[in-house]
């Protein structure tokens, strides 16, 4: 299995506060990597370094290296191109106040696709991949804001898939959803990992256990342990990991 993303000695500061300390982590292709840990442990921060969303935070300073297929994303890659290749789905569904169609077509339009036939095809394919096509194919021109929370989140997944990323980052993307919508999105992730690589931040241990292949446990800005999910959950090598996943703190 090939490594797609690799972080080497990654350090990150917000002002004077060091949020990430010497993170070394490889993310493998076509796997779901779950980042777990208590609030404020740096897992979301780490994930945002992978598509440079931390660039938007003014006081943020980064040292070390993150590579995508061997290319240093902070030195040798344009942030906009990186974000096309590493898509992101946020904690709260954030569809734009436009039609369903325009939401999905937004990404391809940024990258210069104007042909209606091509856009139609991308919209249909993306919505199908996000298991949303059947529910909304008759109302593509209606506002995305009229959809339910779970539908909106799947729309955001479709929107991210429309630019054909290589990696999909999911920042607690099911935490605001009901169990049925959550289950739908989890099934979707298992389907999507055949084609994409998924990195997800989650507070839900069961979710990490259910769907991820690799789990990385963060605590106070450090990567405590990373490994196969089964091993992490059944036989963690570090005492703190065990305490966290058995719910003794967090």
């Amino acid at each position, binding site marked *: 299995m090939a490594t797609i993303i690799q972080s080497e000695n990654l350090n990150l500061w917000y002002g004077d506060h060091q949020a990430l300390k010497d993170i070394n982590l490889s993310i493998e292709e076509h796997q779901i990597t779950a980042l777990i840990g208590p609030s404020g442990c740096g897992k979301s921060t780490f994930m945002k370094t992978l598509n440079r969303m931390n660039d938007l935070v003014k006081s943020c300073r980064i040292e070390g290296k993150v590579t995508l297929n061997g290319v240093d994303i902070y030195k040798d890659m344009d942030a906009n*191109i990186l974000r096309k290749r590493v898509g992101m789905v946020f904690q709260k569904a954030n569809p734009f106040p436009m039609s369903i169609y325009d939401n999905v077509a937004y990404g391809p339009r940024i990258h210069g696709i104007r042909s209606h036939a091509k856009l139609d095809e991308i919209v249909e394919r993306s919505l199908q991949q996000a298991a949303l096509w059947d529910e909304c194919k008759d109302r593509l021109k209606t506002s995305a804001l009229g959809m339910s929370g779970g539908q909106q989140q799947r729309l955001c997944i479709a929107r991210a898939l429309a630019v054909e990323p290589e990696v999909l980052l999911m920042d607690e993307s099911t935490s605001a959803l009901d169990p049925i919508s959550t289950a739908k999105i989890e099934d979707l992730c298992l389907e999507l990992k055949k084609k994409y690589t998924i990195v997800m931040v989650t507070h839900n241990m069961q979710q990490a256990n259910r769907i991820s292949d690799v789990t990385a446990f963060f605590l106070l800005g450090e990567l405590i342990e990373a490994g196969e999910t089964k091993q992490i959950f059944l036989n963690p090598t570090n005492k703190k990991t065990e305490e966290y996943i058995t719910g003794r703190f967090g």
Partner: protein
Amino acid sequence: MKSDMITYSAADPQSISRPVAKTADGKNGSVPPENGKISSSRRVKIGVLQGLMRVSFVIILALLACMIGYIIYRGAAHVTWTLVSTSPSLLNDTIGILPNILNTLYIVLMTLVLVLPLGVGTAVYLTEYAANAKLVSVIEFATETLAGIPSIIYGLAGMLIFVQFFSLGTSLLAGALTLVIMTLPTIIRTTQESLKTVPDSYREGGLALGAGKWYMIRTVVLPSSIDGIVTGCILAIGRIVGESAALLFTAGMANEIMNLGEAIQPGHAGSTLTVALYMYAKERGEFDVAFAIALILLVLTFLINMAAKLVAKKLRRPTQNED
């Protein structure tokens, strides 16, 4: 693994019972609690507040109706075809306000064309780009101060700067430029306020798809704040149409019919309806004409605002019409 499904459903009845408990506390007066009654003191409070709201609504409505009614009553009889279709003639001893109507339209157009890019651009820069918070607050303070200056001072400044220093002469152009400075704070403020109401999640969503910042602002942020920008325009139009003091010194008092090409050139003076109203009422005591002008001003303002709203409707979803 399955335990979280169970906790979810176990928590469900609790979450349903919680709002009911809240209404029993009397936190939400509009939904009757289980026994269907609320305390009499609460009922009095609610009644008084609702009564006050109704009274203020009626007062505002009555004031507006009286004002419009009075203007129609005094003005309607004097709005004649000659009045709206000619310029004043000493030979025939008739009064016409066509030049003033045209001048008003020209000056609104000229001012908006200049102030919109400036004001919206400034607001976008201040809200979306400027990194130096201190500089932003200084600029915001300056624009607020600008908004509080009496218009006669704009008139004086406009006369010194545009009419004399830039040698534009007493002209519609000098008047429009003066009004640009005067309405700039309004446009900047309303645009900024409406940009601030656009959730950051829209911005993040756009950027996370690989959009450049300006592309994201143009396609997501500005369309979402178009209502605020139009509100700013309507307020600005109100100030432009209602302005007399700032225009007396800068745009002059001429009453000649001009076409748009002449109107935008330096040296072509012209009075707007409000300036004309002031002249007829104050200098010549022609109150019938003044009220007729007032009525026409009302109608004109109404029409311009409607037009602005129509434009907004067209602009609101630029990507929706592409297919």
